[in-house]
């Protein structure tokens, strides 16, 4: 291993520009992928916030007694899909209406507004089919007069979410593929630059495993450095956008660590493939 590290250092000393160019190329291809990841993360976050507002409201009949309401609330709280339940009494409904619709204040005297139960659903339970199912169950209660949840709005939200999901997967795969191709070419270039050395290693009796090791290390180091630089660049971009255009969210510590690790693993894997191909294509010494 010490020898492999020395070989990596020697190769860098021999052609520092090639080494730096390699790491920079990897950094930029990972930066492009990271930017995509950042956009995807923020869109996902925005959608989640909108999703949080998905609410099912059940209007109750005028004759509903306090006991009936209490019983309904308890039944709803027991439903696994429900995050929380709130009750709006006829009086507070009227108060709310007066506050929100000030210009109609006068016409509201003596008006009866029905009480309602407001349900917020747990994440993952907010898709149109699930919401409709819950609404259906609510309608079966005798004291429930009408159930509303903004059907069209929920359906549109989920359509957007699906489109974003598919586009994200396709675009993400394309970005990842481009990154792999660019990293592959960079590492292949450094292998070809050292083809003579590989040939000499072979005729003095080096095993393929021994020849491979410095290249794997080189790839992993370049991947880690490239990943680190890409993270720094995405952070600068995110900070700039946050301070000038709109508030954005940056990767969590775990995601950053994962990105860095992915850079290293990518460098390692691509090196493994490239050196393997070289050793296979070039005959034994």
């Amino acid at each position, binding site marked *: 291993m010490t*020898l492999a590290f020395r070989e990596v250092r*020697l190769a860098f000393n021999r052609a520092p520009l090639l080494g730096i160019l390699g790491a920079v190329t990897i950094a930029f291809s990972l930066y492009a992928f990271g930017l995509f990841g950042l956009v995807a993360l923020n869109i996902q976050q925005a959608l989640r916030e909108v999703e949080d507002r998905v609410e099912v409201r059940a209007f109750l009949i005028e004759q509903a007694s306090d006991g009936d309401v209490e019983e309904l609330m308890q039944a709803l709280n027991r439903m696994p899909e429900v995050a929380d339940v709130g009750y709006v009494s006829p009086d507070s409904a009227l108060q709310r209406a007066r506050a929100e619709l000030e210009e109609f204040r006068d016409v509201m005297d003596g008006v009866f507004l029905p009480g309602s139960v407001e349900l917020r659903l747990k994440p993952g339970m907010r898709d149109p089919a699930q919401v409709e199912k819950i609404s259906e169950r609510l309608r079966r209660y005798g004291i429930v007069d009408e159930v509303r949840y903004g059907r069209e709005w929920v359906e549109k939200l989920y359509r957007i979410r699906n489109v974003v999901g598919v586009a994200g997967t396709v675009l993400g795969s394309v970005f990842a593929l481009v990154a792999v191709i660019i990293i592959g070419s960079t590492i292949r270039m450094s292998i070809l630059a050292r083809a003579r050395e590989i*040939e000499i290693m072979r*005729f003095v*009796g*080096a095993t393929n495993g021994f020849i491979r090791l410095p290249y794997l290390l080189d790839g992993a180091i370049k991947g880690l450095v490239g990943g680190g630089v890409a993270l720094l660049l995405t952070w600068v971009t995110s900070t700039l956008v946050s301070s000038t255009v709109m508030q954005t969210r940056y990767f969590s510590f775990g995601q950053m660590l994962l990105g860095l690790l992915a850079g290293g693993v990518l460098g390692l894997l691509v090196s493994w493939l490239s050196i393997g191909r070289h050793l296979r294509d070039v005959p*034994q010494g």
Partner: protein
Amino acid sequence: MSGIVRVAHVSKEYPRSGMALRDVSFEIQKGEFVFLVGHSGAGKSTLLRLLSMAEQPSSGDLRVSGYTSSSIRPREIPKLRRRLGIVFQDYRLLPDRTAAQNVAFAMEVTGVSNAVITPRVVKLLGQVGLGHKLDAFPHELSGGEQQRVAIARALANEPFLLLADEPTGNLDDRATHAIYMLLREINAKGTAVLMATHDVAMIHRSGQRFIELERGELVYDGNDMARLLVDLRARR
């Protein structure tokens, strides 16, 4: 005497350039010095490549130190190479390493410890007359000196056989003689040498056994110097 190299009815055909070797057979005994002679394209380098198992023959069989071409596994090739010394006309030294590092490299790849490598490198470079140029880079050395480094590297793992592919091809007469004398010295210590060369005069002076190849065929194997003189005159 036991044959450390046995070449039996070996032919090698390349898809584009055709037959490089045709039904070649010979043996080399332990500690022998044998020249391999022939015009360019006669098949000398091909034969040396087959002996180092860099390639497989199209037909026939080679046995080198217990390894047979038809049954050797790819993972066994490095093991064989560690028991062979290989020297090329163009030296093939690593340009960014000193003479000592180039020699050490051959031992490092086989996993020898530094404690063993350092004194052995000094000894080997001393043996080839370069004890005073341990830290010189290849570009600071003459052609003859670079070839000496290459020979020291070939000897690093104490080979039983040294394959030399026209090691004096790029050298002047004086350096050629010095390299030849060095190879004889190595041979005298027990390492068999198979040396490909164009230099008929050198073979004549040595009086050693020579194998002559012509268009891929073995046309002579022996030490009849009269035959060699005919060849020498024909070339002039």
